């Protein structure tokens, strides 16, 4: 089994969402790192200043190192946060004052002593972690240089609080930017796919018989698709037109010899006196008539289906249409001495419709009436308005319906159970009901009072 291809939209949206998510995470991490570094730098600045302030106050002497602790240095530290402050001063590697368990820097005292700027490091201390600034100085004690190291430490709660706040903000920023990017990616997917949808719509809106080339404005990327679509349409159009030509040719090649057969059979019938031969010739003529009628109605039926799909609706005046069709049938009706009475065609009755289809329906109704009417009866063809409907009724004095309704008799190739020996294809009423349906109309068959059939064909008035 072939897997259904993932929709372009889904593909695009998933990829854009992925990119948005990665960018949001990178943004979050960057903001956090920068904020952490900034907070640390602030603390280091203050710690360094305090350390240097203490180192300034170191004094040499004859007996030892003197120190006047500058308390303002500690108050600076206290002002930036409520963190606890520790200090330790070593002279010659031996704790002089302060917390003597405060960790010393990893480097040797000599290096520290040589540097003017403080060194910073973070160490665990007691129950917490502290940031420590250390600076070394050399003090002369009894004219002997003694290395002194000053360390000032501060707990990191304040900095951690800042970091947590910044992290929250960064997370919100990351989520916000992700949401924004996601929304934009949905819009982008929509706008990128819009030309495809428009093309699909334009092609989909066409009726099955609209075989013009697609000249919808399309982006460059879709042109190969449109190009091959048009190629396909052109081939289909060619095939259809060859089929139409073929049908016309076939009709010609079949009907012409059939006409010869019929004419010859009629001539032979005139000349023959042998009753079996005459009966055979009559059968030949009936068969020719039946096959030509079937061929004609199959063609009509195909035309009806073909045209119903793309109904070319235009205003049609039913009155002259009915008069014309009735005039066309008059000679045929006359052969059976049938009176064809037309009423209601004095004034125009306009409907929206396809004239050849309406004519085809009307011809089939009249054809049925003429076929099934006993000679010297009348067929009443009436046009009337009834509410918003134009109603054509064809009433004959034929053999009626034998209990079957329009729905049954309109089935393809279905013929009434009382059709008897009358030649027919069973497609006539199918054509009528299909034309009615295509025009939003209605086709009904009723028994006529006093015998016969009344066919009612109604269409919405224009």
């Amino acid at each position, binding site marked *: 089994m072939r897997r259904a291809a993932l929709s372009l939209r889904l593909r695009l949206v998933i990829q854009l969402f992925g990119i948005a998510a990665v960018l949001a995470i990178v943004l979050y991490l960057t903001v956090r790192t920068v904020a952490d570094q900034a907070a640390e730098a602030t603390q280091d600045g203050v710690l360094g200043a305090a350390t240097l302030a203490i180192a300034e106050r170191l004094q040499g002497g004859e007996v030892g190192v003197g120190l006047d602790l500058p308390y303002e240095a500690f108050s600076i530290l206290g002002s930036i946060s409520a963190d606890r402050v520790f200090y330790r001063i070593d002279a010659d590697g031996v704790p002089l004052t302060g917390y003597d368990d405060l960790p010393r820097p990893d480097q040797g005292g000599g290096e520290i002593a040589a540097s003017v700027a403080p060194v910073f490091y973070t160490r665990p201390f007691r129950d917490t972690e502290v940031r420590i600034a250390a600076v070394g100085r050399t003090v002369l004690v009894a004219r002997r240089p003694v290395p002194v190291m000053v360390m000032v430490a501060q707990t990191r709660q304040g900095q951690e609080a800042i970091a947590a706040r910044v992290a929250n903000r960064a997370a919100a920023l990351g989520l916000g930017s992700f949401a924004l990017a996601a929304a934009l990616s949905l819009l982008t997917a929509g706008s990128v796919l819009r030309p495809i949808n428009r093309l699909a719509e334009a092609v989909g809106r066409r009726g099955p018989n609209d075989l013009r080339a697609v000249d919808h404005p399309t982006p460059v990327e879709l042109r190969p698709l449109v190009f091959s679509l048009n190629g396909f349409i052109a081939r289909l159009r060619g095939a259809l037109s060859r089929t139409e030509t073929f049908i016309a040719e076939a009709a010609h090649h079949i*009907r012409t010899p*059939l*006409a010869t057969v019929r004419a010859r059979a009629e*001539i032979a019938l005139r000349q023959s006196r042998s009753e079996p031969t005459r009966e055979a010739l*009559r059968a030949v003529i*009936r068969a020719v008539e039946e096959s030509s009628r079937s061929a004609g109605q199959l063609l009509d039926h195909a035309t009806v289906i073909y045209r119903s799909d793309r109904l070319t609706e235009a205003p049609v005046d039913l009155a002259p249409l009915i008069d014309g069709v009735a005039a066309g049938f008059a000679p045929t009706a006359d052969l059976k001495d049938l009176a064809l009475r037309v009423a209601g065609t004095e004034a125009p009755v306009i409907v929206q419709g396809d004239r050849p289809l309406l004519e085809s329906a009307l011809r089939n109704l009249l054809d049925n009436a003429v076929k099934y009417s006993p000679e010297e009866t009348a067929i009443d063809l009436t046009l009337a308005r009834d509410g918003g409907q134009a109603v054509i009724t064809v009433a004959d004095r034929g053999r009626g319906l034998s209990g079957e309704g329009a729905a049954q008799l309109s089935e393809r190739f279905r013929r009434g159970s009382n059709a008897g*020996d009358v030649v027919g294809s069973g497609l006539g009423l199918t054509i009528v009901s299909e034309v009615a349906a295509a025009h939003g109309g209605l086709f009904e068959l009723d028994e006529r009072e006093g015998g016969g059939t009344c066919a009612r064909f109604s269409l919405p008035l224009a």
Partner: protein
Amino acid sequence: MRFLLVEDNADLAASVAERLRLDGHGVDRAATLAETRDCLAAASYDLILLDISLPDGDGRDFLAAERRAGRDTPIIVMTARAAVVDRVDVLDLGADDYVTKPFDFAELEARCRAVLRRRGVALQTVQQFAGLIFNPLNATVRVGDELRELRNRELRLLEILMAAPGRIFSKNQICDRLFSYAESVTDNAIEVYVGRLRRKLDGSGARIETVRGIGYRLTAP
């Protein structure tokens, strides 16, 4: 009636011509549009029976050209194309009527008559027998000063008998021309029409005589 039959299929043309001659019509044949023009230049016709697919052109173009040129000899198109659209097409081009192949000759004749009647053509087809003047085109008989209308089957029956007065026509011969081949007809049906026609001919001296066991003939005293 005098027909010009334009049909390129030799078999069909021969059959149709023979069939029309059996009914007493004159028929000239043309197989191409060129021959058609030659015939029309040399003689005049009551009706042209025109096929559409011809070797040297489309019958519809010929039809349109004739009408454009103002020549209005009635034209009935014989078409093998039965589609609705084709039918509308030929009438719009100026054809008087059309028949779809294969056609019923009785119907063709009825259509020809209808076309000529519609055109108001004064044909030299009025036939006289005894005190009877018969106009098949208008479907009337005149007896003295009285004009009597004939129904279609009475008209055709009289046409058959008038074609050869005195000759006996069998019931079969009459049946073939009066009824469609799809109908099952009893001998009784013919008698009904004979009876009616006799009443229409009353007082003209013309008489339809029953030849027992054979058929009917038209006689005058």
